[in-house]
Structures are given as C-alpha cells and as structure tokens.
C-alpha cells in the first residue's frame, strides 16, 4: 500500500475546472508566501526533495484531503522543521527563544535567489547498476506497490500501475532512488525508464483501445515480462 496522495484513477472527484491563463499566478497572497518560505527553508540544507515530498504524504488522510495545495506545503514544512530539529514545538506555539539560530548563516539571501533557482537540483547520478532493459522490451511492475526498504515509506510507483505489464519507451539514465533518498538511506542511483502501459492493462473500462499511460519507473520497480 501507499498513502492518501496516491489518487491516480480514483472515482468520484467531479469535473476539472479550467482557469483563465491570464489569471494570477498566486490567487491569494499567502500562496506565494507559502511557496517562498518552503523554497527558502530548503537552503538550510536539512532535507532533500524526496524527504519534503514524503513529509506532505505523511499528513493524515483527513488533513491531506481537507487541506488545499499550499496548506499541505505549509503543514509539511512545519512538520519537517520540527522533525529535523530546526524548530521545536515551543517555537511553533510562540514560546521558543528569539535570536540567531545556529543555521542562520545558511539563510537564503535575496541576491542568491536567482542562482539558487537556476541551479535547481538535478537527480541524475553515475551508478554502478547497469541497465537491464532496453526500449521496446516488455516489463512488469512490482506488486503490491510500496517501499521495500521502509514500511510505509516513500515510493513513486502508483498503486494503479502495480503488477502491470508495459514496455520500455526510453532510458532516462540513472537517477536518485526516492525510496532510499526520502529516508536518508543514501541516493542509491539506478536506471530510470519511461514505461508505457496500454490503458486496458490499468483500467476495467478504458476509453480507447490505443490509449496509453506512461510512467517514469526505476529499475528496481520492474522485472522482465
């Protein structure tokens, strides 16, 4: 099993409501602040992108479903700041001390923003794990899905694609394995592939016989089919 965030294929959500392309990037001012606080805290160097994604996924299903997008970000960030010891619970209730923090010298400065965003965080790495598959080859995904290293841990194989047979369409090179990286178990890079699945392999009532869903999947999620 995975968690509440793993909603691909779920029924019952109603229509998707398109938005004016010229509308505001941040419909509410606090949306932009939530995004910016989260990005700025990343510069403190206490977590990676996989850890931060998992922090949001660890919200209780009740919180995850009632929170809007940036509420999830804010909640995940607050939880992560306490989990990593950057802040204490007393800090969050306003009862902690003010004054410089030991990590304050790492705070993102305005003049560093542009370069930090330009640098990004590439996930490709050298790996000593050789690719086992090549484009065109048939593969089957693991079933059940779930983190094999940590019970209830982070993984990027959605439940809807577990145990499905598809074909390799592309090798992306070797990338950091989120299942390991999200739990500070090392980057464990391995080959990453785009894998195409016929809609009929995934859904009981596919819309069209030629439709496909393509997922990016790590080699350890796959076996020859």
């Amino acid at each position, binding site marked *: 099993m995975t968690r509440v965030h793993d909603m691909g294929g779920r029924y019952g959500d109603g229509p998707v409501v398109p938005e004016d392309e010229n509308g505001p990037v941040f*419909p509410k001012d606090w949306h932009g602040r939530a995004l910016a606080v989260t990005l700025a805290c990343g510069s403190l160097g206490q977590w990676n992108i996989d850890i931060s994604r998992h922090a949001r996924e660890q919200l209780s299903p009740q919180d995850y479903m009632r929170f809007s997008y940036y*509420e999830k970000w804010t909640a995940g960030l607050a939880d992560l700041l306490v989990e990593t010891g950057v802040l204490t619970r007393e800090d969050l209730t306003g009862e902690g001390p003010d004054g410089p923090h030991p990590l304050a010298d790492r705070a993102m400065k305005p003049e560093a923003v542009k370069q930090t965003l330009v640098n990004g965080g590439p996930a490709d790495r050298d790996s000593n794990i050789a690719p086992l598959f090549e484009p065109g080859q048939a593969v089957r995904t693991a079933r059940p899905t779930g983190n094999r290293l940590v019970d209830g841990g982070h993984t990027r194989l959605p439940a809807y694609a577990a145990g499905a047979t598809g074909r390799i369409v592309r090798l992306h090179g070797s990338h950091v394995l989120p299942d390991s990286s999200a739990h*500070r178990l090392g980057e464990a890079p391995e080959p990453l592939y785009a894998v195409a699945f016929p809609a009929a392999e995934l859904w009981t009532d596919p*819309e069209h016989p030629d*439709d496909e869903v393509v997922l990016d999947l*790590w080699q350890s999620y796959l076996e020859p089919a």
Partner: protein
Amino acid sequence: MPHDDHDHPHSLLPPDPALRVKALETILTRKGLIDPAALDEIIDTYENKIGPKNGARVVARAWSDSAFLEALRVDATAVVKDIGFYGRQGEHMVIVENTPEVHNMVVCTLCSCYPWPLLGIPPGWYKSDAYRARAVREPRKVLVDFGVSLGENTAVRVWDSTAEVRYLVIPMRPEGTDGLDEDALAALVTRDSMIGTGLAVAP
C-alpha cells in the same frame, strides 16, 4: 522513519491558512533562518519572470526550425539550458510531440510535478484532486472539460510525472500559420496546449 503519530507539529500553528503561513514566516525570520526580502524575490520571479511565455517560445521555434526541433528530441535539457530556461523543477526535460495520431497530456498523480522553468507555477486545476485522479483513467473526458474532443483516430498518451523528468507537450502547429514569424507563432501557444489539455489556437 515514518511515524504516524497523529500529533503533527503543524497543528500547533494557527489553523487559518494565511495566518499559519504568516506565523511560520515570523518565527523563521526572528531566528534569522529566512530573509523576507528573499521571499519577495522568489515570488517576483514566478509572478513576473518565469512563466508559460518561456515554453511558448520553445514551441514556436520548434515549429519554425527543424534543426532546433531535432536538437530538442535528442536532448531537450541541453537546448533549453542554452536559451536560459533551465532550473528548479526543469532539471531533466523531455519533449513529447502531438501528431494527428497521438495526443500527449501530462499529469502528476502523486503530487503536482510540473516544468517550472518553461511553464511557471502550475494552475490550480493541475494541482486539483480531480485532475490528478482522472487524467490517467479517463483523459478524454478530462479533455472534454477543457472543450477538447479528440477523434477515434487519435490515441491519447498520458505522461504521469513520477520522477524528476519533466515533460513539455509540443502541440500541433495550427493550419494557416505558414507566413508567421516566431513571435506571432508564440502568441498561439497556450499554457494548456503545452500540458496537453488544450490545443494551440488558430490565428
């Protein structure tokens, strides 16, 4: 490491979302962990400097310059880096080209991954439960929500962004655009057409 203690620290902050963010920002600022001027700079970047106009320029050039399109097919990351559209959430770019036979559409069912340097911050609908849940199972019905109806002769390929690879859809070039220059072409490229929930507009 997962500890589902149901006593999450975030519940110690004010419940109102705007006040919650404000409280966190205030606490972190007092400790010198964030600089509010850096936050302003981040917001300005995504409100005014990085957005779908970047992606539209790439598409317009791909429509007009076959060597550029071929370079995108080989290594889109290197190409967009050359023109300054590289960075956070666009570290590994791949283009997917719409044709009369195949319509591509991009989603992230597990969170809301999106090619920021080319398209900016994703719109609300892209981050909605409805889009994340439905795009993979019933993409054609989702397209109808956007006013797009595909024929029986067009297959749909939905790309679920489950890793750090980001996909940019190259929509089909509208008919009647032969004489247009890149600026005029870029004006036809909507944000949604580069996600695959829309089509480029006819002039």
